[in-house]
């Protein structure tokens, strides 16, 4: 009996151990300043992980022109939806892809984890600086000399997508201020619709709204980081949306789900304040509403102002441990500067390039059918000019987004408020920074 008990206990121990996960640590070698970046001998194959819809088409152009440098595309969920986690795991295991799509807000996170190759020494990279919109370039260099950690791909200037047909039929003026937006929300609600969906998990979109209001969550100086998730501007934005939630003026569907798409497709939701690439999201998620949408600048806090926020925007980074940094850097530079590649990516994913010349490409002057033929990129170009370029991202954004989203989940389902969530997120972020030995001011 005693023996069988021990045996059974052992079996249980073995089974419970299933809970244990195998993890491994990344290399801790110092990031080389600008070391060598020599071409490889012979043909190479690069792996590239991206979630950009249809990025394969642009890569196909490269593969045809460069038989000796073939790029294989691996697609995955969007960064915070799982790809970043994969990258962190792959980096720790030493088998990351050569190239990866990383959004600007995640760059410091990858830099802190030593996940990025410095490609400044690679041919043509430092010289490419002039081709890019200045703030995008400073996001990939962290303001350091002789350092380039990725090539900017696109930016995410924000505007308001709205159902032109519904607004017109209902005789509601298209809102230009947040005050008007709330008034419109009341009228739309009276008709059975919702003006928008408050996304409890897109904290980067919320950050875009704070960005527009002039707030900033992180700043960094010689003494360390300052975390400010509850500043005056953030509070203003949080209280505004809390009011809309409390009065049932916005829907609270989990975003990026079929339920959410269906709400747009069935005309229940009338607007989406989103980034330029959101044009693709609506077109693919709500095909029945084609032709009925239009784009206007974001509603403003002050009438007559023209401030805009930014949501997303990506880079193509050469991940640590790549055997072919030279070729990878050449591909990354080509992908994000070549006219054909930028045009292809705009056609499949509606992205707006980070290069100055790219924005002048014919495709960005064309009307877009889904948006009633409106030249929507002109609105986003204008918004891009009105985005404050000095917004700093913290080094643990994955954690910030998770923690704030957990609080927002509570807020949209009736426990706590958005501001409570941000207050808790503030404490959690400081704790996470400390846990990672990153200097932080309290």
């Amino acid at each position, binding site marked *: 009996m005693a023996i069988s*008990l021990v045996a059974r*206990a052992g079996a*249980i121990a*073995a*089974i*419970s*151990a*299933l*809970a*244990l*996960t*195998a*993890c*491994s*640590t*990344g290399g*801790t*070698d*110092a990031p080389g300043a600008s070391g060598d970046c020599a071409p490889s001998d012979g043909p190479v194959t690069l792996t590239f992980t991206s979630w950009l819809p249809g990025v394969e088409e642009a890569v196909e152009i490269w593969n045809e022109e460069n038989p000796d440098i073939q790029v294989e595309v691996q697609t995955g969920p969007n960064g915070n939806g799982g790809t*970043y*986690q994969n990258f*962190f795991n792959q980096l*720790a295991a030493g088998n990351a892809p050569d190239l990866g799509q990383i959004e600007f807000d995640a760059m*410091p996170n990858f*830099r*802190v*984890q*030593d996940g990025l190759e410095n490609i400044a020494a690679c041919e043509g990279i430092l010289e490419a600086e002039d081709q890019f919109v200045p703030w995008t370039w400073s996001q990939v260099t*962290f303001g350091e000399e002789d350092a380039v950690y990725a090539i900017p791909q696109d930016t995410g200037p924000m505007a308001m997508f709205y159902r032109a047909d519904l607004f017109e039929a209902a005789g509601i003026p298209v809102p230009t201020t947040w005050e008007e937006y709330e008034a419109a929300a009341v009228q739309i609600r009276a008709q059975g619709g919702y003006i928008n969906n408050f996304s*409890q*998990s897109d904290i980067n979109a919320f950050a875009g709204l704070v960005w527009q209001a002039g707030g900033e969550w992180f700043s960094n100086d010689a003494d*360390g*980081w300052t975390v400010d998730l509850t500043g005056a501007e953030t509070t203003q934005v949080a209280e505004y949306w809390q009011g809309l939630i409390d009065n049932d003026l916005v829907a*609270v*569907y*989990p975003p*990026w*789900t*079929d*339920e959410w798409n*269906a709400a747009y497709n*069935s005309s229940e939701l009338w607007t989406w304040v989103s980034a330029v690439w959101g044009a693709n999201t609506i077109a693919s998620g709500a095909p029945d509403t084609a032709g009925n949408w239009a784009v206007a600048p974001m509603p403003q806090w002050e009438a007559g102002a023209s401030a805009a926020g930014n949501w997303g925007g990506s880079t193509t980074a050469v991940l640590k441990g790549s055997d072919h940094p030279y070729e990878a850097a050449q591909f990354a530079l080509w992908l994000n500067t070549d006219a054909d590649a930028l045009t292809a990516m705009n056609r499949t994913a509606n992205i707006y390039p980070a290069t100055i010349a790219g924005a002048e490409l014919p495709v960005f002057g064309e009307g877009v059918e889904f948006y009633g033929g409106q030249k929507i990129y002109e609105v986003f170009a204008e918004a891009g000019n009105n985005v404050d370029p000095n917004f700093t991202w913290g080094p*643990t954004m*994955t*954690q910030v987004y*998770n*923690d704030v*989203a*957990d609080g927002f*989940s*509570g807020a*949209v*389902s009736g*426990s706590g408020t958005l501001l409570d969530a941000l207050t808790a997120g503030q404490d959690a972020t400081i704790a*996470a920074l400390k*846990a*990672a*030995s*990153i*200097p932080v001011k309290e």
Partner: protein
Amino acid sequence: MARDTAVREPAVRASRAVRHRGALAVFLVPFGALFVLFYLVPILYAIYQSLLTVEREGTFGPAVQVFGGLTQYISVFQNEPFWASIGRVLLFGVVQVPIMLGVALVLALLLDSPLVRGSKFFRLAFFAPYAVPSVIAAIMWGFLYSPNLSPFTAVTGAVDFLSAETVLWSIANVVTWVYVGYNMLIIYSALLSIPQEIYEAARLDGANQFRIALSIKIPLVVPALVLTGIFSIIGTLQLLAEPQVFQSFSNAVTSTFTPNLTIYSTASVPNISLAAAMSVVLALATFVLSFTVLKLTQRRTAQ
């Protein structure tokens, strides 16, 4: 001749054992190697990881992993969301496991009863959901619960199965649906191994089917119930797939909804050492809980 065998037998046995050593190795080494490689090594590595902390200079200075003793474990015990998630799955287990095992027991008894026709069909039908991968099951139920996309919008429009108050129980329903057939099968096979003579004796004593079930079958399948109970407790503490899938249906499922989800999101920070420490604590908690249940049920059986 007889004497001869008697004398030679031990020698034969010994040589047989020697001869079989090769065969033993053939059978044991593959298991042993895989067990060590994919079981012991990862466990030991996780324990090792959990003892490390990160040090660096400035923000972007090179990170160095140093021995941190029990630092990560202290963080685990101070981590409110982690303990809240353990509390949540314990509540889940206290309600869901007895219901699931109760239903499994009733179904097994029905299948075993001579009064039921088509028991082969029902046995397969009850078991079929277990063949559905839990992720697929969760997606399917997610759509069934969904207020606008469900085929039963009359029901889902009136009751919100995905709200903060209900979603835990909606997930419990999915888990029950998937695993009830599996547990039923274990209990049913225990029922099949009960000797027919006992039933005969019971019938001679005038016991009806209900009485037989109550006084003979259920007491005799208690070991199977203990086994399925312990498996279910372990499964409950390790819930991951269902809540993770439900994140795309309900905005009430947070990134720290269950202990394994908490570990997953901690690892994605990435704070792998803390995630490893949480894993070790969760494994120990599971072990202690399973062992306690085993001890308690055994004491009761002994009495």
